[in-house]
Each structure stands twice: as structure tokens, then as C-alpha cells.
């Protein structure tokens, strides 16, 4: 177990298990043993490759599982004192946007093409618990200033089609922070943007955290990005959280999957040589082997790794791993 924090976590995900309904039989389990806590003002990176279940966890957090035929089978998600797994649509209406902001992946399509930026921001501002309608224009300008958009007066009159991808993502972030949420879930917010713009968006998220104290969950497949901007990293593999640690500690990983991810970072590649990749492929959803799901690809696999359930997170001093033999790893490095 991780050490008990002094303050209660803002978001608490415990043993979350998510399944997709199949015609007839049992649901297809896509996530189990997702565990992490987000504290007020923290920036948490949730990383994993395609199929690791990070997007499903993200959907569970924002309450859009049902529309994809998926549902939470077990476990708990708490936002403060609120149980989000049991929440009905009436509760979700109070939570979505207002307490839990969301920055989608598709910045290019996330804004209504026939409404001005000003109108869309005004709509988001009206979601505040105590909307101040007379002052909405000033608040909109202030929001644009926070997301570092120049010439706010002009931009407020413009339509999304007249703005660049980076600017549109900044507007999406402005819309997400407008109601004053405690938490923002950003699902790969820099996908489809070029690298310099990416850096700007990430810097912006960090500024927002510093300025407004908003906690942020960054969902990404990019370890370098998470390393550079987050406080805490949670690594997901094959539907389970395999390692959870602060950014400083994750540099010396205690799970071979994280170590492999670290080694395969593109900026570490030696020019002229092949890129380092992780051998093999993650097990297919629904065909998870018993025991550790990374065992097939693991360099330090032991006989007991392939038995029983997937191991849960264990660890000390805020560095938790699902690996049964993290000490062997240190020896191998």
C-alpha cells in the first residue's frame, strides 16, 4: 500500500474494473486493477500504449462509458466525497464541466464551427455556480489572457475555422477552465499539433495549475511529455496500473515495463542505430494470461510471475509497483 497522504485525495480511483457488454456472455474486461489518487493542485500523468485501457479509465472519469456500451464492473471512483460510479445523470450534470473539466483529443473538431469564440466561451462561463452575466465579456477576455491568446478582442469575434490548431486547443482549455472545475482531464491534448505547439500547450496546462490550482490528469502515451510536465506518473499496461510514482522516482523505475518504455524514448536513440523497441506485443484484450501480463515480454521473468491474478500495486514511500521482483531489475540495470 502507498503511504497514507495527509489530505484526502481529490480523485480516488480504487480497483477499477471496466467491461464492455458482449451479446450474451460475460462482458469483455478491458480494465481491471486501475488504482491512482489525484490530490488538489497535482498534475498526474496517466500513460500507456494503445489498448492499455487509459482511454477507458478516462471515459469512466468523465462518465461517458455507457454511450460506448461499457460500464464499471467493480471498484470505485470518488471525486471528493462523491461516488462517481453510482452517480446518476442528474449528479453528472452537476459534475461535468462544473467540477470536472475535459480537454478532448480533437482540438480541431472540438469547437462548434458556426458559433463565435466569444459565444462559446460565454456559454462555458455561464456554467459557473454563480454566473455573472453582466461581466461575461470581461471574464471571457480574462480567460483568453490566461490561455495566452493575443488580440482577445479580435479572437472573441472569430469563428473556429479562422484559428490555428494550437489556438483552437487553447480555446478548448479556456472553455474547460471557464466553469472553475477542481480537476481537468486532458486526453492526449496535443495529438495532431506540431511539436513546438505541443510544448506551448503543455506549458499552458502547467501555468493553469500554478495560477488557478486546478488539478490535472494528463492522459498520454508519451513518457517524455509526462516526465517533463507532471508531478506524478501512473503507468498502465494491459488494463492494469503497473507503476505509480513521482516523476523524480520514475526515472529509476521499479517495473520492467516502465524501464522498457524509458529505454525506448526517441530522444535517447543513437543516431544511425535502430530505435529501441519493446520486444513482442501486449496481450490482446480478453486474452490476458494468468499472473503478470508483461511476463511474456519481460527480461527478468520468474516462474511465479505467471501464476495467479495480476499483481496489485505495492510499494513504499509513494513508489508503487506491480512487479513481484523489482529488486532483480535493479540488479539487471
Amino acid at each position: 500500500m502507498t503511504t497514507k497522504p495527509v489530505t484526502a485525495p481529490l480523485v480516488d480511483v480504487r480497483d477499477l474494473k471496466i467491461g464492455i457488454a458482449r451479446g450474451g456472455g460475460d462482458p469483455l474486461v478491458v480494465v481491471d486493477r486501475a488504482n491512482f489518487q489525484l490530490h488538489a493542485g497535482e498534475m498526474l500523468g496517466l500513460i500507456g500504449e494503445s489498448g492499455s485501457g487509459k482511454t477507458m479509465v478516462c471515459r469512466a472519469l468523465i462518465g461517458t462509458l455507457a454511450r460506448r456500451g461499457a460500464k464499471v464492473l467493480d471498484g470505485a471512483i470518488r471525486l471528493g466525497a462523491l461516488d462517481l460510479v453510482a452517480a446518476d445523470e442528474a449528479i453528472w450534470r452537476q459534475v461535468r464541466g462544473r467540477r470536472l473539466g475535459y480537454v478532448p483529443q480533437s482540438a480541431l473538431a472540438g469547437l462548434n464551427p458556426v458559433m463565435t469564440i466569444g459565444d462559446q466561451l460565454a456559454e462555458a462561463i455561464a456554467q459557473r455556480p454563480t454566473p455573472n452575466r453582466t461581466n461575461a465579456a470581461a471574464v471571457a477576455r480574462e480567460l483568453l489572457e490566461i490561455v495566452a491568446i493575443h488580440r482577445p478582442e479580435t479572437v472573441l469575434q472569430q469563428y473556429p475555422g479562422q484559428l490555428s490548431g494550437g489556438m483552437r486547443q487553447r480555446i478548448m482549455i479556456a472553455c474547460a477552465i471557464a466553469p472553475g472545475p477542481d480537476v481537468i482531464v486532458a486526453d492526449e491534448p496535443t495529438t495532431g499539433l506540431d511539436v513546438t505547439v505541443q510544448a506551448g500547450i503543455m506549458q499552458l496546462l502547467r501555468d493553469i495549475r500554478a495560477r488557478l490550482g486546478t488539478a490535472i490528469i494528463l492522459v498520454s502515451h508519451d513518457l517524455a511529455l509526462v516526465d517533463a510536465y507532471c508531478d506524478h506518473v501512473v503507468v498502465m499496461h494491459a488494463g492494469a496500473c503497473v507503476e505509480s510514482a513521482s516523476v523524480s522516482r520514475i526515472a529509476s523505475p521499479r517495473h520492467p515495463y516502465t524501464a522498457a518504455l524509458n529505454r525506448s524514448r526517441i530522444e535517447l536513440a543513437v543516431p544511425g542505430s535502430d530505435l529501441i523497441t519493446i520486444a513482442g506485443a501486449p496481450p490482446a484484450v480478453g486474452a490476458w494470461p494468468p499472473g503478470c501480463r508483461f511476463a511474456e515480454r519481460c527480461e527478468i521473468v520468474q516462474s511465479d510471475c505467471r501464476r495467479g491474478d495480476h499483481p496489485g500495486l505495492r510499494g513504499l514511500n509513494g513508489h508503487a509497483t506491480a512487479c513481484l521482483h523489482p529488486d532483480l531489475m535493479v540488479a539487471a540495470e
Partner: protein
Amino acid sequence: MTAVALEATTASDGNTAGRVGIRVGAAMLGAMLLAGLLVPLLSEYHPNELIAVPLQPPSLQFLFGTDQLGRDVFTRVFSAVYRDLGVAFLGVSIPLVTGTAVGVLLSVSTSRVLVAFVTSLIDAINALPLLVLAIALIALFGPGLQSIIIVLAMTNWARYARIARTRAMLVKQQAYIEAARLQGYPAWRILLRHFLPNVSSETIAYGLSDFILVIMLISGLSYLTLGAAPPTAEWGAMMSEGRPFVQDAWWMTIFPGLALCWAGISLSFITEGLSRRERGGP
């Protein structure tokens, strides 16, 4: 109204040719609307009064000549402006509104039976040529401009409904609709402010080009004596009345025909300009 709304969506950086087209079209249409207002007011003749020797060629006194009953063609042509354009406006806007609503409802309806029934009805209506359908229905309601509006309201919605449904199916899946849900906006607001405007932009664009077709239909039906009844001044009806005299009194047919062309050309300048700017925009 619509033109203003669409113009705003493309704002300043549109295609120059498109902007010129819109201005020329708007100027032509504006001139016609102004003339339609002023000519009947200022003219010393009443459009339906027999004031002169019949079949006089154009002169300074009777700019467009006189018809077979000795009415001033000039006054009649311009007193028909608001009648023709007004009927066309209703003939476009009523199906536009109902068709868009039907298309949107179809796209969100969960009742398979209802969807199957209404789409078959739409297909059936769209399968028949509008003019043939219109003539058949007018035989039922009796000739008149009101009948034309009723007939258009009964039939033309199907075209809008098909466009709206196709568009709505697409808009429904757009990320901005999902984003609006995740912002916690209530369903009615998402429907009215995010969904509908993105669907209606498509049907309004069709409506603008449909305007020309509808004007032609109104005049066409009136020419076939199924629309405006004498002595009502209406371009199609006037051309129809001029037909027996076309060899001796060409002005009876030509001037209402020119007015019809003027209206059609000004509208197509506007629609073409708008679509050019849409395409040329960012």
C-alpha cells in the same frame, strides 16, 4: 437575414470574386425591391385599371406599353414584385423549417418504424417531379397563389428533410457535440445552439438556390393558369395573357419575363457568391 448570417460565418477573409457576386446580386435584388415599393406608389396608373388604348407599344407615357385591356404594363410588372417574391419566400421558408425539423427528428429518433415510414414518404415525394406533383395537387385545391404555397409546403419539405437528415447524422457524431455534452450543457441547449445551427446551415444554403426554382415554379404554374387568377398582376400570369398577342405586342410578354430573369439572376449571383466564399474561405 439569411444572407447576413451566412456572410458573418465567413467574415472578412473570403474570396474576392464571391464578395463581388454577392454585392452585385444584392444590389440587383435591392433595386428590384425598391422599384416594387416605389413604382406602384408613384405611378399615376393603377395596375388593374383600364386606362388607355389597348396594345400600345412602349412610349414615354407607357414605358412598357399597354396590354390587351389597356393596362399599364410598367405598373403591373413592378406591382408584382412583392407578390412573386413574397409567395416564393413563403414557398421556400415553410418547407425549409418543417423539412429541417423532420430531418433532425429522424436523425435522433429511436423508433425504427417511424424512421422507415417517414423516409419512405420522403423518397416517394422526391421520386416525383415537383411540377407534376404540384399540378396534380392544385387540381385538388383549385388554382391560386395560396394553393401554390400549400402545395409547396406539402411537397418540398421532403427535399429539405433528406438534406437535414443526412447532415444531422454527420453532425451528431462531431467532436463539438460530444465536447458540449462533457461541458455539462443541458440537452435542449446542445440541440438548439450546437446541433440545429450546424444542420440548418446546410438546408438554408439549399433554400437560397431553391428560391430561384420556386419563383420559376410559381410563374410556371401561373403561366399554365393554375396560379394567380386575373386580374392579379403576376409575372407568369402576365406572360400567359400576352401569349396570344406575342407577334404584335411583344412587350406584354418580354417585360414580365425580364423581371423574372432579373430576380433569378440576382438571386443566383448571391447564392453563387456565398458558395464561392464558403469554398474559398479558410
